[in-house]
């Protein structure tokens, strides 16, 4: 299918007439990246292949990134609903669909808008200064960041966070494709360490005034409950606090906006894997790493250990940011390991580390963000050994 009318051809001609103003020497020469972004949004350019490869895959960077955003839609929609659901049930009010979605939208959309606007500003600024095209990867970063924030995050903090993520996490390394750390997680880590009171604890995960909440409501996340529990009866403690594995899987729990529902993450994973956009190797190996980590923790736990040491692997995979991190964060192609073997090692270690941090770090109960950032740093090293292995194999030929 093509959309090819007189009008669209005229529009393209008009754009081409405007182009000289936006190229070097033109009146708005500095704004070329903006012009290019808009023009290529409207039209796939008529550029043809040079060199020996005369045909090219229909995919481009825009389609790749928009596919990831589409895969996020289940998480966005469910997260939106859950914000309202958590609020209304904390207040003991009826949780009808539209009220839940409405409250959620009220909390979530401003954060997404701020993230896109502020992050987009930096992206464009660096593109203009560096005179390169605007890379579409930002569409994903700008959406991922708000989804891993609590719904109560003040907008100015989100603006600072995404600024840090884009500028320090990405642009200082040279921009898209060159960054070591996942920019969205860098942004979250910034907020986490700069404003811990707004990013952790029991009161931030539900958008509700504690004074209006029903008696006995604590706002604690399942991970916090598990961390505070003692001994092997952790599941009973969780169920006592009102969490079932089913709720955790479906996402009827407090948490960061987009990450609560394992089911929604699985839908996203389905889209990413069916389209071939994200690396299945990382997803599978990280899940296996999480399972291995859970068994390992249970094996080394003593009778007086914190309850989270005994948390079964199904819980680990369903609560907190594990599923979301597994599907959308660890698989970021730029900051992940690039080789096939490297991806398996990288994913597995993230899974193990995430559970390890959850279980043995007394300061905060969640570990997925730190595990991914940590392994982002190690991904080049893993790749290095895989590459050397390849070189060695070549030298050993008979």
């Amino acid at each position: 299918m093509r959309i090819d009318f007189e009008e669209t051809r005229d529009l393209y001609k008009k754009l081409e007439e405007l182009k000289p103003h936006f190229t070097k020497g033109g009146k708005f020469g500095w704004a070329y990246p903006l012009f290019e972004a808009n023009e290529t949004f409207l039209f796939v350019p008529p550029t043809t292949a040079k060199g020996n490869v005369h045909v090219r895959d229909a995919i481009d960077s825009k389609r790749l990134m928009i596919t990831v955003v589409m895969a996020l839609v289940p998480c966005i929609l469910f997260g939106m609903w859950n914000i309202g659901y958590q609020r209304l049930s904390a207040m003991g009010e009826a949780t009808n669909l539209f009220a839940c979605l409405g409250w959620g939208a009220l909390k979530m959309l401003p954060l997404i808008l701020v993230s896109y606007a502020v992050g987009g500003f930096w992206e464009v600024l660096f593109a203009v200064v560096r005179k390169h095209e605007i890379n579409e990867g930002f569409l994903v970063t700008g959406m991922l960041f708000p989804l891993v924030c609590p719904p109560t995050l003040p907008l100015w903090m989100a603006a600072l966070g995404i600024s840090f993520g884009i500028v320090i996490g990405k642009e200082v390394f040279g921009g898209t494709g060159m960054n070591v750390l996942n920019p969205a997680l860098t942004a979250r880590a910034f907020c986490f360490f700069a404003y811990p009171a707004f990013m952790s604890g029991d009161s931030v995960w539900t958008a509700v005034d504690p004074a209006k909440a029903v008696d006995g409501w604590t706002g604690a996340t399942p991970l916090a409950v598990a961390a505070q529990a003692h001994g092997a009866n952790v599941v009973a403690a969780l169920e006592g606090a009102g969490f079932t594995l089913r709720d955790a899987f479906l996402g009827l729990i407090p948490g960061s906006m987009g990450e609560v529902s394992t089911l929604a993450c699985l839908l996203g994973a389905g889209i990413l894997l069916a389209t071939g956009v994200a690396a299945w190797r990382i997803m599978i190996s990280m899940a296996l790493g999480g399972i291995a980590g859970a068994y390992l923790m249970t094996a080394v736990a003593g009778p007086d250990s914190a309850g989270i040491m005994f948390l079964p692997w199904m819980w680990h995979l369903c609560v907190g940011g594990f599923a979301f991190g597994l599907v959308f964060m660890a698989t970021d192609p730029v900051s992940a390991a690039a080789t096939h073997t490297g991806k398996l090692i990288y994913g597995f270690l993230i899974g193990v580390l995430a559970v390890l941090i959850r279980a043995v770090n007394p300061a905060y109960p969640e570990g997925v963000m730190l595990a991914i950032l940590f392994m982002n740093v190690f991904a080049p090293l893993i790749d290095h050994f895989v590459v050397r292995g390849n070189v060695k194999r070549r030298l050993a030929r008979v």
Partner: protein
Amino acid sequence: MSEIRMKRGWNVPLSGTPAETVVEAARPVTVSVRPNEFRLVKPRILVKEGDRVSVGQPLFQDRERAEVQFPSPGGGEVAEVRFGPRRVCEEIVIRLDAQETWAEHRPHSPADARALNRAQVVEMMLDSGLWTSLRRRPFSTIPDPTGTPAGIFVAGSDNSPLAASPALAMQGRDEDFQLGVDLLAKLTEGRVHVCLLKGKSVPALVNAQNCEKHTFSGPYPAGLIEAQIHYVLPHKKGREVWYLDCQDVADLGEFARTGRYPVNRVVAVGGEGATSPQHYRTRRGVSCAHLDPKASPAANRFVSGSVLSGTQVRCDSALGHYDAKFSVIPEGDDADFVGWMLPGEDRVSRFRTFASTLTRPQAPRMTANLNGSVRSHIATGIYEDVCAVDILPGYLMRALHVGDVEEAESLGLEDCAECGLCTFVCPSKIDFQGIIVHGIESVLKEDE
């Protein structure tokens, strides 16, 4: 007889695969050669416009190695010696005489030919110009006559997009092929390896003796000789192998028998732009405009060879020395309104983000358009998914990009089969193939 399966790779679906039929093409008025198509060869042109040449007479030679001579594909008058920018000779055109003359060499009976020794075979190949049909791995340059290859590979398969059929080309050439193989066997310390594709039998090759046969299966580039060699005798420092097309092997046998440079070729013309995709019985140096005069030069791109590794040529330019087909595809140089967000039920993609994954179109839309704009490299891992040889394309490219040729060599620059798939799949539209070719050229220059 070994069977080898290549797991990685991809078949790029294109409409207009040449039909398994051969039609006799009319005798062309002109034939030509393109002296600039040979890697590392610096041509010294031996003829000028107006000269009379006979078939097989050298038109140009390599400045560095005068014994490597390039024979004329036709007899008649040199109609044009066309120079491009920087005095690079682009094409030598010969207007054919009604009665062509041949540069005559001594014919041999098959028994006499088989009695020749290595030096005599080398001399015969150099004299005839058939030496130029040999190429060496790594890097696909014409080999030095003093070199000794660890094996000689004969290409008897094609599964690139718009594949030509070697079986049609080899019809009735069994004896010449066998003689060619016997002569080639004298050149190598190792064996002559004949490479075939599973399910695509070429009787002349299957029945040949005095050679080892390998049957490959799998997606493209399983039918590409450079990739096939990697699975049988992969590159090793100090080892070189030679390879050539099965039509050239039969030509060698024919030359030994007749003493005349063989010019007959079966050439495929395929692609959406071809009026009737099929095979033609024609001759060396023919142009696509002669075989398929109705293919519009305005709307189409003419490629000598495959669309993943061939050379863009003018429609009246010669078929490449090593090519057996023309691919004619629409140029596609028009803007596509919001093309990147449409369902794309007719698009071709290794990713499955288009509706074509479900609709599996019979005639997919495929042009020479980049289908996007150039962006920063993103290591999606797709390169490794499609690379059939044991290299890590992303890392090789990175080394080449920063000009670290030594690192590139240790990462397997010599192994690259130049199949073009990593460039094809790249979502950032980076011309990896161009980077690789540039790297190969700088290695070759260093070696000089």
